[in-house]
């Protein structure tokens, strides 16, 4: 299922013998995967194939039926793996508080990472995404794409090593899609690991690994 890359690398996410299921139906069975530093992986498959479920399992949210997930050779649930600090998971749900302003929302997360981002940093990334005028607006008073952009700001404001992005290109206009592709490639170049899903093809994004999931059967791509 995965195209193994054997070059040694600083960060490395490995999945061994993974079985996960939803509603008592297995989605993945005894699967091995590996995601190396500097690589961008595209998970694809039909609706309901199990992409989101796999990502949630990687993030430690969905209990595994069997198998293990290793971050730098250490189990991801082990505190020493530092997995939780290294991971940034963006889900369909943007995880922003509707009744708070954009700035407040983003600052929570950067505080949780241990370093409150300054207002300048905030305005800088907001300016790149053309939402600098909206920093004081409630999250609920934004358009769908603007809300999405706010969530994307986290990619810049938080220093991590692994991005797990569920449908990050949805609702974005072309300019922002390009911005995100560039950010992803830059992050990978600096040694980060990127895993994302998308139903649309993204022009200009260099993808190193494609993993296809399909209903009850999986195949390498």
């Amino acid at each position, binding site marked *: 299922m995965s195209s193994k890359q054997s070059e040694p690398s600083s960060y490395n996410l490995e999945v061994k013998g993974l079985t996960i299921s939803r509603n008592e139906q297995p989605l993945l069975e005894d699967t091995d995967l590996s995601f190396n530093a500097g690589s961008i992986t595209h998970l694809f498959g039909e609706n309901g194939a199990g992409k989101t479920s796999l990502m949630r399992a990687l993030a430690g949210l969905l209990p595994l039926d069997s198998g293990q997930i290793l971050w730098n050779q250490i189990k991801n649930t082990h505190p020493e793996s530092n997995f939780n600090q290294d991971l940034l998971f963006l889900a369909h749900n943007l995880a922003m508080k509707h009744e708070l*302003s954009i700035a407040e929302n983003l600052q929570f997360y950067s505080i949780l990472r241990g370093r409150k981002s300054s207002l300048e940093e905030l305005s800088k990334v907001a300016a790149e995404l053309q939402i600098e005028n909206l920093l004081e*607006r*409630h999250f609920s*008073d934004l358009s769908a794409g603007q809300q999405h952009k706010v969530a994307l700001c986290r990619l810049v404001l938080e220093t991590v090593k692994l991005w797990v992005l569920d449908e990050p290109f949805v609702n974005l206009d072309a300019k922002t899609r390009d911005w995100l592709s560039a950010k992803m490639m830059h992050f990978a170049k600096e040694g980060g690991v990127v895993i994302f899903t998308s139903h649309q093809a993204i022009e200009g994004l260099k993808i190193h690994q494609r993993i296809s999931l399909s209903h009850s059967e999986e195949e390498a791509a």
Partner: protein
Amino acid sequence: MASFSKTAGRWFHQLGSPKWFYQKSVKWLPWLWISCLALFAFGLYYSLWASPVDYQQGNSVRIMYIHVPTAVLSMVAYLAMAVCAVIGMVWKMKMSFMAMRALAPIGAAFTLICLFTGSLWGIPTWGTWWEWDARMTSELVLLFLYLGFIALHSSFSDRTKADNAAAILAIVGAINIPIIYGSVKWWNTLHQAYSVTKKGAIDPQMQTPLFIMIAAFYVLFIILVIIRLRLEIMNREAKAKWLQQEVGLGQESNAGANG
């Protein structure tokens, strides 16, 4: 609008323009301040020195000169708020909503002062700072209504929505105030068990200073509303060109007026 007479129509139109109001109100303020100070000077002198001491209550009766005017204004403010709400909703007039928003904290403050002075007065006269007396109780409910309004309005970040929602609340509240007052009064007369020193007619020597103080507080109230409304305009029209010019020009003309 067509039914308005021509001058009234123009007035209405002008009042509806933040720019017009912002520019004109600067000129009204000095006059209002002068009359306010004069009324207060006169009223305070009259009420604190020249009026008689109450034979039952002694000097504590002087609290009345603050207590009663604030009580009156607390209700006037709510009424004004509701009127602004109706105008804002019917004619979609932004300025009216701004006035509504400006009135709320002022009304709440007057209500609070009325409650506070009333409680203060209660300690010497009734021996307790709180009784569930009809007037006091309905004043308390009025305070709750103000607080509800403010809480609602400031829970939105979109001003249009905040204005519309809060306006509905103000109107609903205004319809309810007479009902609340009536019910509280009725309820209170039902439970007359406890003793409140019931009041006789007011001495005319107290009435005149009281009227002056009411007038003084009225003017003060108008001044406060204008100031808050100007702040509100500055807040909301921050991006408007006329205001940006005005802030520069305004300083000059202020300096001219003061110097």
